[in-house]
């Protein structure tokens, strides 16, 4: 019986102890009219058959082991050191629950505390939570915090159009039941245009860094203007880019959110990923989701515990600002291991590889007749290419050559028809990049 260990004799003995003749009797409270319906599911399979089927299904996908990947747009193909998976495979980590009982959960608690610490280090913020579902929901939760900071008095949220389109969709989904206005992202507004929109009703302004097009906007003066208007500056940052570029904390952000998938989490068709959330000290008690804090045990020994619990739904119930409960714990552990391995020097090196390779690729493509790369601003590991024909045609040709090309921006941005967002990481060798350019040029 698969994962059920009962033998008939044991079942018998247990039923006797309970005082029933069969398990059917235990369901007497279920309306008899609806009790024990048929289930039309496939027949059971043995482990070896399921393993074979999973392999077959997985191989019906075009994946990064068989294809050269030049696609990012919010999900990045980075190298993950083998140690990460070996540690994640320890049952002590992945088969544990949320650390509600700290005495027997110090492993998870300390690792999460270390994750929080390293996310603070990356973002330049004072505190980070234990995770949100992903970058998009993390942004949506930041909106809630910003609204709360204004005690509900400010109702305007400004989003840059250069924030990941799906993130903006999620913000709208999350706040559809609230009486607020989300603006700024319908047009092609630059940062400067967004600052124009600030007013006394603005709770926050959010920018992406690097933005969805891979570019690093100049944010030097932004924080000041936002703060002057009494609003919060929220920065959606790719944590991998923070290996090189000035931290959002240094730029004056109040909340930094984003997708930490690049830090040791595989592409995995979009999830589970890791929404990170970091904030200034003064707003820390408004943070949603779990947070681990340091304390002492009864013997005076350092230990860790979930803290600020009274904010959470299980205690505050309808007065909680978020309902989040289960988060992305194991992915935070993955990021923790990844960052520990990479460390200060390793992460910077990865950042540099991304930067140099992307710039090399951009140059190669920019030289191709009919193509042009937007080099108007500095960029990290992604850039926009204006193409001489539909992106889908180019990608079809690339696929034939074992290459998954860039992301088609047309469906999301009216002004970017036939524009492709190309991503280059440390996983792309020079030969691969050259081949990409060659195939694109040969069309």
């Amino acid at each position: 019986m698969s994962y059920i260990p009962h033998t008939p004799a044991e079942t018998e003995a247990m039923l006797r102890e309970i005082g029933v003749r069969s398990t059917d009797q235990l369901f007497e409270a279920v309306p008899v009219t609806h009790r024990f319906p048929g289930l039309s599911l496939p027949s059971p399979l043995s482990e070896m058959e399921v393993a074979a089927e999973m392999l077959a299904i997985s191989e019906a996908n075009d994946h990064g082991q068989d294809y050269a990947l030049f696609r990012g747009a919010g999900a990045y193909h980075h190298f993950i050191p083998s140690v990460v998976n070996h540690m994640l495979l320890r049952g002590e980590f992945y088969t544990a629950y949320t650390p509600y009982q700290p005495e027997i959960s110090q492993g998870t608690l300390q690792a999460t505390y270390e994750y929080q610490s390293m996310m603070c280090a990356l973002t330049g913020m004072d505190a980070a939570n234990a995770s949100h579902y992903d970058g998009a929901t993390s942004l949506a939760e930041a909106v809630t915090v910003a609204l709360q900071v204004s005690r509900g008095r400010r109702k305007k949220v400004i989003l840059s159009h250069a924030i990941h389109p799906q993130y903006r969709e999620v913000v709208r989904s999350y706040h559809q039941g609230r009486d607020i206005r989300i603006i700024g992202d319908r047009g092609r507004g630059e940062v400067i245009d967004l600052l124009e929109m600030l007013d006394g009703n603005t709770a926050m302004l959010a920018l992406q860094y690097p933005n969805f097009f891979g570019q690093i906007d100049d944010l030097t003066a932004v924080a000041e203007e936002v703060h002057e208007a009494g609003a919060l500056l929220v920065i959606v940052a790719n944590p991998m880019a923070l290996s090189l570029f000035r931290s959002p904390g240094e730029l004056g952000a109040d909340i930094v959110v984003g997708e930490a998938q690049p830090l040791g989490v595989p592409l995995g068709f979009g999830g589970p990923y890791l929404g990170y959330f970091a904030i200034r000290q003064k707003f820390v008690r408004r943070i949603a989701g779990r947070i681990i804090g340091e304390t002492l045990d009864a013997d005076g020994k350092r230990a860790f515990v979930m803290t600020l619990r009274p904010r959470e739904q299980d205690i505050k119930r309808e007065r909680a600002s978020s309902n989040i409960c289960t988060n992305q714990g194991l992915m935070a552990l993955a990021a923790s291991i990844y960052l520990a391995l990479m460390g200060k020097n390793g992460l910077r090196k990865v950042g540099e590889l991304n930067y140099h390779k992307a710039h090399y690729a951009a140059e190669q493509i920019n030289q191709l007749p009919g193509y042009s790369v937007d080099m108007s601003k500095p960029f990290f590991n992604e850039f926009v290419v204006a193409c001489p024909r539909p992106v889908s045609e180019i990608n079809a040709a690339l696929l034939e050559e074992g290459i998954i090309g860039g992301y088609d921006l047309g469906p999301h941005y009216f002004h970017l028809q036939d524009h492709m967002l190309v991503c280059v990481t440390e996983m792309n060798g020079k030969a691969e990049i050259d081949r990409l350019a060659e195939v694109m040029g040969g069309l």
Partner: protein
Amino acid sequence: MLQPLIYDHSSPGRSGVNLPDCDVPAAPLPSELMRDDLPLPEVGEVQVVRHFVKLSKLNYSIDQGLYPLGSCTMKYNPKLNEDAARLPGFAQLHPLTDEDGCQGALFLMHELQAWLGEISGFPAVSLTPAAGAQGEFAGILMIRQYHLDRGENQRDIILVPDSAHGTNPATVTMAGMTVRELPADAQGNVDLGALRAACEGDLRERIAGMMITVPSTLGLFESTILEVIDAVHEAGGLMYMDGANMNALMGVVKPGELGFDVMHYNLHKTFSTPHGGGGPGSGAVGCNALLAAYLPGPVVGIVEQPPTKSPPIKNERDVFAMSSYTDEANSGQPIGSSLQSESGVDNEAPLYGFLMPEKSIGRMKAFHGNFGMHLRAYAYIRVYGDSGIRDVTRYAVLNANYLRARLMRSYRLPYPRYCGHEFVLEGHIDGVDEVHALDISKRLMDYGFHPPTNYFPLIVPEALLIEPTETEVKEDLDAFVDAMERIAEEARTEPETLLNAPHTAPVRRLDEVKAARELVLCCAPAKPIASA
């Protein structure tokens, strides 16, 4: 021994990984944009391994023993599923792969949608929500939008029993709606009188719906569930089922057939995906035809039927008819190698694609849900199949009732009925007032067990919510009963032993007040130079 922090292992110049040299010409870095400091630790690979291995040893986990945490369904996490999740065809699949290039993944999601629908009696399922709470949020937003679309803007109240999980009321607030709490009656059912009063009184027109957990968070099947549903429907509200306790329902009753309109599943409970020390989860949402068009997106549908099949089934791209899921020829058939052909996809297979339901409440997260959990749930259901899924519930309920029958001799059982997959005891020993549920829980650690859920549901004093799950063997249940009985005895003879427990865990009880007051959330070396 105190486990050092990862920063304590740091020494300038160390690194835990070798990276390749750059094989392209270096581009100039924009110096004005570069950061100066990056206060990450510098640790060697060997040390990193040891650090995390040692941390892991401080955890209790399912892989080492019984984890009877009520409401959490801590069942065994099959290793098979972990291997499947790590196949390169899944782990290295980009979420924005063009439709043609991810037919395997789409097929799997499509099947899983159909199977979850079949198990719960709902024609439509969306896999996008990332956890139970997000599933709730989606479901309540769907109900909200449904009423708005019918012009019933005034419907803003969601009824929630007082035994509900905290996520339920919090969800209602997030959706911009209002919670109205309902008490339980003496049997642990929703108090029908109070419910009818709410539904028939002044607020009738404001009732948007009700959220209810089945079986309840007390582990009890509401014996009046049909009346509850009727009453709410009668008032024009819709019924949301919190499916966290689905492990007590599979093959026993289909929520959709009972009359529920929408529910969420916790794949990380019922369908064995690992809890991961706090996640990830997966909170798929299922619903009936009334609400199908409001599901969060994207969902997976058939966008092109195989050319060889006749008559062509309606194209899901055109009409979002999720109900076609369960009667598709392909559904529920073992796929064997049919998907695996030279071109990657069999010619006879339909083409799957992502669809946005017509009136969707939108996206709940980027991309399309926690796919890594979908594939594990798929493998899990595949193992049990039609004849086995009901066994999961049968044995989960058997195990819970066995513990209930044995433990009610030494602890007070507030609701003396057959329970579902879990039951609640009062963690209180008569005559020993200083001993609380928490003390009993901490003492269980010394006996080598993870404690039950404490102080939930809130309506039972000193609640100990116990859920063994079906994967536990009788010997271990017996050992747990022995420990609980000995603890009851100790409470009488040596209460200090309990009050100071645990004695053998890696740490003693923690000062939680200090943690919240001092708020040390980030270790000093991680602080950027400015703020440090």
